[in-house]
């Protein structure tokens, strides 16, 4: 069971190959470079270094959301193209769920957070006490204040992961919660975690064809609010 996975959901980008639960290779980059410039060279380098070609892969996986509008489309388009070319099945992984595979710790709730801007985050909670993460809520978008209140009510040790972890950790400094931030090497979205999550989903026969892979955007709660501060001032 060999999986090739990519993540381009936020600022960092990565590609990885796993085989039966082991990471065979991974390329991670966290610069300001555009994913469209880095993803294919990373993929090429990874496959060459692992002496693999796409036809050796059983399944292609990608984080399909939530995430940045452009980022998600880059990763999904790349996986669609590759899967179509080699006629292999695909697996869509929730970006937040993928991060639940970054670490496991006893008696710990993993809080995956992604910066959705305007003081909002994309979030899901997972029990990561065992090797297999247990989801505690659906993927959602909410304000940092709302999430703080929920974490206080949990009364458990919480570890923040994701591109929004640093933001939340500094904004939540005063809350009554045993709050930690994941170490840098396990903090961000990682394609290796996407691949490990995909292995589980593969076992559950949750594969799809390249043509049905779609971005999963989460509607921001602020969509309820006015975008304009006041009425349009004048006509163009």
């Amino acid at each position: 069971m060999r999986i090739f996975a990519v993540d381009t959901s936020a600022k960092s980008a990565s590609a990885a190959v796993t085989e039966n639960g082991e990471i065979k290779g991974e390329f991670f980059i966290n610069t300001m470079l555009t994913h469209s410039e880095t993803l294919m060279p990373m993929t090429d380098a990874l496959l060459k270094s692992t002496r693999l070609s796409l036809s050796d892969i059983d399944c292609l996986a990608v984080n399909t959301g939530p995430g940045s509008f452009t980022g998600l489309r880059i990763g999904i388009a790349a996986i669609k193209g590759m899967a179509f070319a080699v006629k292999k099945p695909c697996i869509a992984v929730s970006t937040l769920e993928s991060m639940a595979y970054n670490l496991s710790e006893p008696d710990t709730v993993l809080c995956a957070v992604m910066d959705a801007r305007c003081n909002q985050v994309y979030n899901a909670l997972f029990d990561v006490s065992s090797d297999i993460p247990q989801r505690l809520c659906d993927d959602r978008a909410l304000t940092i204040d709302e999430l703080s209140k929920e974490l206080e009510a949990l009364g458990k040790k919480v570890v923040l992961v994701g591109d929004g972890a640093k933001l939340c950790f500094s904004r939540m400094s005063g809350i009554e919660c045993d709050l930690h931030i994941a170490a840098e090497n396990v903090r961000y979205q990682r394609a290796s975690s996407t691949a490990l999550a995909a292995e589980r989903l593969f076992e559950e026969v949750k594969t799809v064809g390249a043509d049905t892979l779609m971005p999963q955007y989460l509607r921001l709660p602020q969509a309820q609010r006015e975008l304009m501060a006041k009425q349009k001032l004048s006509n163009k």
Partner: protein
Amino acid sequence: MTVINAEGLKGTEEVGRRIAGALEGTEVIAFFGGLGMGKTTLTRSIAEALGCEDDVSSPTFAIVNEYKARFNIYHFDMYRITSWDDLYSTGFFDYLDTGVLIIEWSENIENALPDSAVRITIKPGKTEDDRIFEIEGLDI
């Protein structure tokens, strides 16, 4: 807040150069002011002062133009943006922190502007070609 009375086209261009000189590379510059106030002219002056050799024109149809200069410049026209979904699908949130964002018709997305945004209100001056610039959030 800095208020500048700019005389004629040359005055507006000088304001553009002064703004450009104060930029660090990741600012969000939000223009307020109606049609014909010189938002595109001001953008062109800022871009030129940053070494941009691309044509600068209003991105009315494209919604966003990208220019290469000392910093990446992303020139938005938000006139047709009326919902959060519209805004999200322009990639606006992906562009933040990757360059200087210059935004025409900021009125339409005022509640999505970061707190740190530079706000520039353009008003008519004494003569047809004069303008009054009110600049908040940037020392020029």
